């Protein structure tokens, strides 16, 4: 489903020196896998996730999603692939403040051929699924951090993607909300979704079918 072949990403810093958060990584994620990516802060987890989604270009190496070489695609093709195939849950607050909960959730459907009616129907269903069916007209600033994360999760599901990329979706959340979100992810995995999730929390390992660890830009398999 997702393949990274010998992928490296380096950044040149202002002083001329460089850092390499992802170095010669090889990764193959099969359809339906729930892969957990753990590691210390700054180990390159988020960079790897962004590389897998085509949100940053690798300095070297090849990335394929569903057999499509991501960086051989045009911007339009790459965007279309992201919109239809990948759902995102970001670590930071990523809701558009000027849109309400329903509009935020339906937003990704703008970039697919989904009709407005179907999009709003799906958005409502997804929000019901994450327990926010009664907050459709609320704006992000009126929601708690946990509620915002749940809206983001609902938004990630709107286009019924095959892949979910989640960057610390449960960080800064209380235990109960964390549990709720993980249960939704578990259910999605059960339905056949491929999930790559970055986390700090070792307690979440039981949810995954495979656990990987990033250390100074290198990827290791954990058994």
């Amino acid at each position: 489903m997702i393949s990274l072949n010998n992928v490296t990403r380096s950044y040149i810093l202002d002083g001329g020196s460089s850092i390499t958060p992802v170095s010669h990584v090889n990764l193959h994620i099969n359809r339906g896998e729930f892969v957990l990516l753990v590691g210390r802060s700054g180990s390159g987890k988020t960079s790897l996730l962004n590389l897998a989604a085509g949100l940053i270009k690798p300095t070297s190496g090849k990335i394929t999603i569903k057999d499509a070489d991501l960086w051989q695609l045009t911007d339009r093709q790459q965007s279309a692939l992201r919109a239809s195939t990948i759902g995102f849950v970001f670590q930071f607050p990523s809701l558009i403040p000027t849109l309400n909960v329903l509009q935020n959730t339906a937003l990704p459907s703008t970039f697919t051929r989904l009709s407005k009616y179907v999009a709003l129907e799906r958005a409502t269903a997804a929000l019901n699924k994450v327990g926010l069916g009664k907050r459709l007209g609320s704006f992000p600033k009126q929601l708690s951090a946990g509620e915002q994360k749940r809206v983001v999760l609902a938004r990630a599901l709107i286009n019924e993607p095959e892949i979910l990329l989640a960057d610390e979706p449960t960080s800064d959340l209380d235990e109960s909300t964390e549990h709720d979100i993980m249960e939704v992810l578990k259910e999605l995995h059960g339905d056949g979704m491929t999930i790559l999730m970055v986390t700090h929390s070792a307690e979440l390992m039981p949810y995954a079918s495979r656990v990987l660890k990033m250390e100074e830009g290198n990827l290791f398999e954990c058994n």
Partner: protein
Amino acid sequence: MTMSFINLALKNIKGNLVRSMMAFICVLGISAFFISTMVVSSGTRASMQKGLQRLGADLLVVPYGAQTDIETALLMGKPSHIWMPQDYLDKISAMQGVASVSPQIYLQSLYQASCCSVSETFLVVYDPKTDFTVTPWLQQNLGRELAPGEVVGGADIFSPGNNGTIELYGTTLNLVGNLEPTGTGMDQTIFFANDTAQEIAASSVTKAVSPLVIPQGKISSILIKLKPGVDVRTVMAQVYLDLPDAVPVSTPQLFGTFRDQMLGLLGGVMVFIALAWVLSAILVGLVFSMSANERRRQMAVLRALGATRWYVLKSLIAECSLVAAVAAMVGSVIGFLGIFIFQSYFSGTLKLPFLFPSAVSLLALYLLSLALSLVTAAVATVYPAIKISQTEPAMGMRE
């Protein structure tokens, strides 16, 4: 599509109301200023053009040194006393290339005198046999010449007693109609034929506070129509050679002094507007850049969710363009209304020739203002918008 780029832009405008208002007020002010200047400029030009058309002549011959007086008289309706020998008429008629000539005599009503119901008004006496200034209008609208005791007024002339009469030098005259407006002093002018003028002059000796004097054998100006294809300069040269005390003024040159002054003034204003426009573009660009930079992460999220670079670029440019377009529309209407309300101030207090431009001209100016504002918005926003749309989404998310 649930959220078109226009919808998103509108939501962002609403979400950044203070900044949007700053850009809005900036573009509104400059548009209103631009439109009002353009309307004044266009209205003045239209007025002078209409005035020249009213004269109907290719060439005007006036006494030497009276060019400014004649311009002031025709343009501002300020009475003028200029005289030259009547026999110049025959001399000019005999010149090669001249098709027809017509004399005019310029008089004025008395200042606040009981014998004149209109005070200090410009009076133009024409020869009905040769006239091509008033006669075409009379033929078209009355179907006849003016009878003795009848006058026709410019667009602003009315009967003070509202009984269709005007009293000049103790003689009651019938106001039989008003010419179409030109925006020039001709709108405040009363026209009548030679016979009527002589009647008024004769009776004024006993009826008026001060008699109307029309010097014998004198006229004020000669209007000339040229034969088709004749170079106006050829006839002008003949006038210079044969009539040393007279000056030929080709009608395109008429109002030249005023036009030069106006063009100089408008040129200065236009430079000021251009500078203000550049400054406003910079300000709008800065306001927009600040607003857009704060939303780099938002744009990165959109890209991650499947938006193309083009969608991001469009939504950013649309945001500023929508503000600029609405501001230009409102600003232009304010500019139009301002000039419309104060148009009597131009022709009255400032004595500027001014004719409110036609609906087509106004529409053209409106579209020009709108186009300029949209171009300004696009120029001001295109660089930051391209920069943001080209940023790698993951990089945008870090900011």
